[in-house]
């Protein structure tokens, strides 16, 4: 008998390994693993981020060093893979350095708005009543502006500069995130486990943190990820209007704007910054589509 049991044991162990549940995030990863488009775009984003972080090490030249004798060289010119701009600065180096500002303006405002808008939304959704009215009606006023218009309004009044651009984008992204968090929270708050927590005398902050926040995390994060490309495009638009970083700091939107003067001389070189914005923004959009599917969040 003993050896029969002993022989059966490893088999049972094996089976229990197979049956073991992977958990929510395990499932998400399992679905993402075979989504090659999303993985490719994720790798692309990581590559762009790394290039921007290590720009001083990677860039072949000084992005600020101008050379009037080498102005507006074409793509593939000797020593300048992507040509040179209107002041003879190396385009490749400026593109690599420029990614830093553009990516920061894509990610940082979304992160700030997720925290602020998310908290406001959770508070509005959980407490309902007057608090909800006050917060959500204020947000409705911001929805009365198309986002580009609100961006130009705030940025135009505050004036240019990278700090003002950050404030502007954060303010614009808070209302939509707040709305998504509020909807998700008001669905979660009527669920049995929240009632159960309340009946065991759990404090409101602990209910919010341990029960509500965890359950609204995936819709809010998926929604926030769709806003990264919106933020990049808005930021480059503001820079294009002169409401972003000041020259000579390299930034894709600003470069697009200054090189516009040169489209008759070097059309291809003038198109380069826009291509970078387009690729980054497509990559972020496809990753957020993939995340949405993997996390099974409805739009």
């Amino acid at each position, binding site marked *: 008998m003993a050896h029969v049991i002993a022989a059966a044991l490893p088999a049972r162990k094996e089976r229990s390994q197979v049956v073991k549940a992977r958990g929510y995030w395990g499932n998400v990863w399992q679905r993402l693993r075979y989504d090659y488009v999303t993985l490719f775009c994720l790798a692309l984003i990581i590559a762009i981020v790394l290039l921007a972080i290590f720009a001083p090490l990677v860039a072949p030249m000084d992005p600020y060093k101008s050379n009037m004798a080498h102005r507006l060289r074409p793509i593939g010119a000797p020593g300048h893979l992507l040509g040179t701009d209107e002041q003879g600065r190396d385009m490749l180096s400026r593109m690599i350095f420029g990614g830093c500002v553009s990516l920061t303006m894509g990610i940082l405002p979304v992160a700030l708005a997720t925290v602020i808008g998310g908290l406001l939304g959770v508070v509005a959704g959980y407490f309902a009543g007057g608090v909800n009215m006050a917060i959500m009606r204020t947000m409705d006023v911001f929805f009365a502006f198309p986002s580009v*218009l609100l961006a130009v309004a705030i940025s135009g009044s505050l004036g240019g500069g990278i700090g003002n651009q950050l404030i502007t984008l954060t303010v614009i992204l808070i209302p939509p995130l707040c709305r998504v968090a509020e909807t998700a929270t008001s669905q979660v708050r009527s669920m049995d486990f929240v009632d159960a927590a309340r009946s065991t005398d759990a404090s409101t902050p602990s209910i919010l943190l341990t029960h509500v926040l965890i359950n609204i995390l995936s819709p809010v994060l998926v929604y926030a990820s769709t806003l990264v490309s919106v933020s990049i495009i808005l930021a480059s638009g503001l820079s294009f209007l002169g409401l972003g970083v000041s020259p000579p700091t390299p930034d894709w939107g600003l470069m697009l704007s200054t090189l516009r003067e040169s489209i008759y001389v070097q059309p291809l070189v003038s198109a380069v910054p826009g291509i970078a914005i387009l690729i980054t923004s497509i990559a972020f959009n496809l990753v957020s589509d993939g995340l949405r599917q993997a996390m099974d969040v409805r739009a």
Partner: protein
Amino acid sequence: MLTVPILLGVTLICFALVHIAPGDPIQNLLSPTASAADAARLRAAYGLDLPLPIQYFIWLGKTLRGDLGMSLASNSPVLGEVLRAFSNTIVIALIAVILAFALSMIFGIIAAYRTGTVSDRAVTSIAVFGISVPPFWLGVILVIVFSVNLSWLPATGMGPGGSKTFDYFKWADFKYALMPILTLALPPLGIMTRTTRSSMSEILNQDFVTTLRAKGLSELQVIAHAVRNIMPQAIAMLGLQLGYLIGGSVLVETVFTWPGTGYLLNKAVLTRDIPLLQGTILVLATVFVLINLGVDLVQSAIDPRIKRN
């Protein structure tokens, strides 16, 4: 009827714009040799010494009577400038949104009907491109291709006659509007195609579609039934996108120096003409709110499931 409180909120934000602008507006008006007493007198003359809530109500009263102040740069009434520019914006925005709507319905329906096929993938790619492309860059590319390389279309402006003699039905004039319209149309095309595709495929998966087929209707008739079901949503989307185009045309109009409200905004930003900035934004936001109101009314009129509260 939330429209009135929302419009009041809009005026509050527009009023606040002047006050978040850095710098003292009085200092810009005074000569450098002016004394502090002169500054105080001018401040009182403009009512800037009153408490903010009172200033707001005075400003609101003027605004309701159609007085949006004077532009600092041109010294003419802001309202007149905005309305003149608005007529140029609304026409190209309307053409662009109708073009985008028609194409997005066709693309979205094809993609939803033939989910997973090559045509579905092609449509989805166009949609992703549309929502990812920076619109002003697309404008620059069109200029490079059609003006610089092919010399088919003029790069900027409204032609020799300007907006007074502009005739959208004459090719000599319309060719100036063509590239701005195409540039404006692409982002809403992307968004609306995605929406149409997802709502259409949701409808096509419902049981009544199977019933229609079982009744022996042709596939075209089945599609017609499904399209009827997505129409209320499609119209809401159309209105929202029209509002976005009217309010968000600043970048595209700047690229093409198209003399609409967007270009006016850009001018106001560049010259730091805050009254012009404030007035233009107030008008555009009001139009956006009214379009949304119109969409709600139309939607509840054509869809009996939506009850008016």
